[in-house]
């Protein structure tokens, strides 16, 4: 899929003869190099998980948060350049609080996704700005129930049942497609997401990783929060067990 866009790839305001904007595609490559991020929509909510690759043994566990709350009812998991991700999250938080102060209710997830996507797209229109080097999975619970959106560096945003970005996205997508999401509760979903992340983690190329998960569901009272510690432990144990079973075959 990769091709060198010699000459047409110097600026985000240049099209190539075959109608591609190479800078945006290169930005997407930055996302593909980061740890896998998965989101799934279960019967009663959303579960998001991040494979946080540990670059240094001296890093404190629990630092380098990749999943952020954007408002009470929604959260965002970021893949790609972390600093770019911080900017997008800050913008999303500001959009959400602004909507609430004007309209008096929590921002609908569809609206939030549109605003974030517009903002990301904005940075692909001017030559003095570079596109964001990060993709974002946005999960939330509003009046219309739980919803999951993904925003790419090009500014595209679609709604999904299950989405994956980062290194292991192809493998993760295959695994997600095997799940029966419409019958799954979030409790079960947490276990499944952990299993998938452990599965797609490439032991050869990257050494250690830390699993970070969050959910918005009926059990969490439609608030976005980190998955409770005991459930997270249960998920990790189940995931490791599933891996060993696979290796044993």
């Amino acid at each position, binding site marked *: 899929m990769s091709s060198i866009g010699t000459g047409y790839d110097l600026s985000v305001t240049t099209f190539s003869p075959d109608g591609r904007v190479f800078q945006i595609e290169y930005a997407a490559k930055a996302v593909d190099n980061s740890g896998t991020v998965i989101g799934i929509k279960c019967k009663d909510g959303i579960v998001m998980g991040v494979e946080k690759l540990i670059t240094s043994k001296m890093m404190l566990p629990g630092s380098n*948060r990749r999943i*952020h*709350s*954007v*408002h*009470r009812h929604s959260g965002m998991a970021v893949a790609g350049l972390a600093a770019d991700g911080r900017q997008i999250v800050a913008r999303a*938080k500001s959009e959400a*609080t602004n909507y609430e*102060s004007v309209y008096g209710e929590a921002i609908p997830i569809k609206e939030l996704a549109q605003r974030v996507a517009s903002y990301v797209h904005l940075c692909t229109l001017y030559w003095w700005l570079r596109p964001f080097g990060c993709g974002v999975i946005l999960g939330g619970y509003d009046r219309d129930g739980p919803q999951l959106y993904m925003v790419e560096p090009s500014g595209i945003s679609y709604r999904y049942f299950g989405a994956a970005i980062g290194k292991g996205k192809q493998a993760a997508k295959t695994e997600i497609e095997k799940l029966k999401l419409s019958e799954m509760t979030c409790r079960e979903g947490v276990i499944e997401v952990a299993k998938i992340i452990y599965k797609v983690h490439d032991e050869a190329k990257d050494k250690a990783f830390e699993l970070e998960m969050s959910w918005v569901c009926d059990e969490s009272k439609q608030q976005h*929060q*980190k998955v409770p510690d005991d459930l997270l432990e249960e998920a990790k144990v189940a995931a490791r067990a599933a891996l060993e079973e696979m290796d044993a075959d």
Partner: protein
Amino acid sequence: MNFIASKQPENRLLGPESDTQRTLYPYVTGTSVVALKYKDGILMAADMGGSYGSTLRYKSVERMKPIGKHSLLGASGEISDFQEILRYLDELILYDNMWDDGNSLGPKEVHNYLTRVMYNRRNKFNPLWNSLVLGGVKNGQTYLGMVNMIGVNFEDNHVATGFGNHLARPILRQEWHENLSFEDGVKLLEKCMRVLLYRDRSAVNKLQIAKITEEGVTISQPYSLKTYWEFSAFENPAQGAIGSW
């Protein structure tokens, strides 16, 4: 911007011809709030009246609200300013929650934030016309503070606003002691609220008592106090009255 003759006067103290607005007087007001520290936390009482001048117009105004996990805010004065303060605090608590770092704002922090807001507005001659009572418990520490529209703030074992300062606090000074039980605390608050009901013309006989402990906030359902009007001096009040002509 400098070329256009600006209609906006620089001086905010100018009278009616200035475009800027500032609070001059309150419209819908709540009367006293009384609060005290007890064994497990804070007890706070406020009636549910919203007066429009001398009319007791609104009778179901909730003047006490929980703030975050650890605090309870009671307000007297302009109700719309109270609602605005609740919005500021809502945003404050939301941003605090989004950090998700295991820490949350306690009553002392919220009280300090409110003091800054109230004092800064007063300095711009645009006050939020309220007297606020902020109580809470965090990590076993009980805190009770007050801040009013001119920015005066302090912390004490029992506080009151408005008429409560004159009628309730003397009772509390006599009868408050450390480690009150819940029942004794409620009895003491009801005693204060009854005096206020008899003597404060903007009091209504429909009140709520709120309690905040380490576990959380509970605000009671509205109820009424029993009053006694059979004093002999009230019998046949017109007896000694002499006609004016």
